């Protein structure tokens, strides 16, 4: 029996007297899109912040396993989680490097690989061929992603000058350039128009199918969640109230009561 890519065991997070996440356990598999949904303040982003090392969880284990390796995220520093456990994330409020160009944003994401090749910058300063090769590989990879998100023509723009939807996609591409095993997206469809939202769905499905990595998703936009998720976890007040495939979750009475309101259908359509 192989282990799931990510397994969260009895995660709790308390801020003073407030319990933001309460005894949460779930798995997220390789090559699957797992969505975490829930009303505002349900603790979704807190789960992400625990996963990516921004807060050490109060209780619980967060285990990532791929190949032969296994990492306990709760014991690792944030940048090591990204570097070694290969978890990449995006942010609810976009965090690009606004004054750097689009291409540079994607190349910075490949820093670890480039830094090793430049041998503490010495090989880079001397312009050794080994470093040159790795650098052009990094640019190729960035180009590949620019093509996939349709920003190739704007590669030399400042990232901060891109339209909002492009910034969202660029942030996903930047996370993918770190060569992750799992991609965590915090509300990627927030603020997108329906066409951009549909493009995002395509991009996420292609990341799941073509790149073969696990995607963990926080989302409010039901059209995104219901359409592309393979599995949905519903949180309410920090507790898991449902866990399953979209259809099962949609008809779960507890979800309808807690999340969609008593009059489920009306609420759902207004959310869409």
């Amino acid at each position, binding site marked *: 029996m192989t282990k799931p890519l990510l397994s969260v065991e009895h995660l709790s997070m308390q801020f003073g007297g407030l319990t933001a996440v309460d005894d949460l356990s779930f798995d997220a598999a390789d090559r699957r899109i797992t969505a975490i949904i829930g009303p505002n303040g349900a603790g979704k982003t807190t789960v992400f912040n625990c996963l990516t090392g921004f807060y050490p969880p109060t209780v619980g284990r967060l285990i990532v396993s791929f190949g032969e390796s296994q990492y306990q995220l709760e014991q690792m520093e944030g940048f090591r989680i990204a570097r070694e456990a290969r978890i990449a994330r995006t942010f609810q409020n976009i965090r690009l490097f606004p004054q*750097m*160009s689009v291409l540079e944003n994607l190349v910075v994401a490949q820093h670890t690989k480039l*830094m090793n090749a430049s041998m503490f910058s010495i090989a*880079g300063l001397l312009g050794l061929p080994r470093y040159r090769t790795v650098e052009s590989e990094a640019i190729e990879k960035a180009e590949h992603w620019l093509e996939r998100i349709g920003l190739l023509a704007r590669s030399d723009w400042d990232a901060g000058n891109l339209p909002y939807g492009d910034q969202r996609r660029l942030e996903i591409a930047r996370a993918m350039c770190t060569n992750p095993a799992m991609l965590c997206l915090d509300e990627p469809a927030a603020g997108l128009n329906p066409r951009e939202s549909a493009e995002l769905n395509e991009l996420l499905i292609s990341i799941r199918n073509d790149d073969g990595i696990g995607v963990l998703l926080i989302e409010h936009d039901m059209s995104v969640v219901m359409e592309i998720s393979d599995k949905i976890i519903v949180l309410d007040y920090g507790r898991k109230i449902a866990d399953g495939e979209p259809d099962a979750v949609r008809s779960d009475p507890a979800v309808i009561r807690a999340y969609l309101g008593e009059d489920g259908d009306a609420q759902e359509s207004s959310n869409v």
Partner: protein
Amino acid sequence: MASQPQDWSATLKESAITAAIAAALMFPMIGLYTSTRAGGLAIETRWIELAIGVLLIFLGRIALIRLRDGERLVPFVGGVFAVGLGLQLPLPNGLLTVCCIAGGAVVVLRSVVLWVGGKLKATNDARNSPPLAARAQLFLKQYGPWLGAAVIAFAIAFPWLPFADRRLIDLATLVLIYVMLGWGLNIVVGLAGLLDLGYVAFYAIGAYSFALLSSNYDMSFWACLPVAAMLAAFLGILLGFPVLRLRGDYLAIVTLGFGEMIRIILINWVDFTKGPDGISGIPKPTLFGLSFSRRPPEGTESFHQFFDIPYASVDRIIFLFYVALGLALLTNAFILRIRKLPIGRAWEALREDEIACRSLGLNPTNIKLSAFALGAMFGGLAGAVFAARQSFISPESFTFIESAIILAVVVLGGMGSQIGVAIAAILLIGLPEWFRELQDYRMLAFGALMVAIMVWRPKGILSFREPTLRLHEEDRGAKQ
């Protein structure tokens, strides 16, 4: 704004209000002054100076209002008149003369700019993004390398130009030292975005390393140079560790304290640093063992003996200029190159967003420490050159005002811009030294220059950033 000139009554009214405000402000500052008399201080009045000052402000305000409304002729004539008046009329105070001439010159200049600008109105928009600056930016993008080569050629030829006398070459050396300091600090402040107010500490470390090593162990300048750089870099790391978690204002305060700490240690550790007396007799650099003194010590040869030319004391100053120039060019080459390496991009990424850096697997600790260390290293190099130029150093040379000036060079030059920092160093260091005749008004001119740069180029003289990597070469210069 309004393209129709206001009627004169409105203009006069607005100017009168300005003059009234000026009078209220100037009354205590200019109208009254204290003088020592037998038995204590007495307050005396300077009504004439006050009246002339208020009148100048009243007239200047009228000129500015007319200029704002697009009128050119009246302000131009008035400005010329003011300059002439300032030059001819013996005003009761030198400061008033300076203000009169400078104010008139500004008005003349603005009306000329308005004339040349033709249809462009001097609205606020035009002032915020002058087309001149945009064109200069395009020009720099296209001819940057040629311009750089021309500047370097000029710098190399500089000591042999007819107007370059001993004093000017010495001043140019000082400017080059500040260019190096500015470039070094630019790594920390401009690229990595860490506000460092104690940069003078590394400058001091470099200077004292060279001074102490040469006076205690007879080490030559060239042997001390790498040691000074290493020591400064090491200190940069030492400073870096405690401030890793700090950002913005907090970081600025701690680095400010660090700069003062080093200076106070230098003053109080008398056994080691000779305290406030300073260290004198610091040797000059040699050219492959050839010194530049008239009578070299026994067993050594000096430059003029070796080449069999008559002794000229200016040779030494020219040589030091070339040493500073060489080190500055080395600094420039190093920084230009490292900016395009992963570490350089990581510095900039850290400046932009530390949390995003972390989420991409960049280790902020290493990135910050490397920025501190490399920035400090160039400060140390500049310090060693400074000690060699002065022959005498004391803690007084390394006060907080030095840090502030270096920071001003970086900020006014445009953070992250190499050429901008060099221009700002020439403006801020070269001009005030050059205008030493102004005496008391030298610092006033310094302040006015800073204000002028901030008004016309609020983001620094050259503030645009060229990406370190490009996919589309044809884009270069095509868009702003």
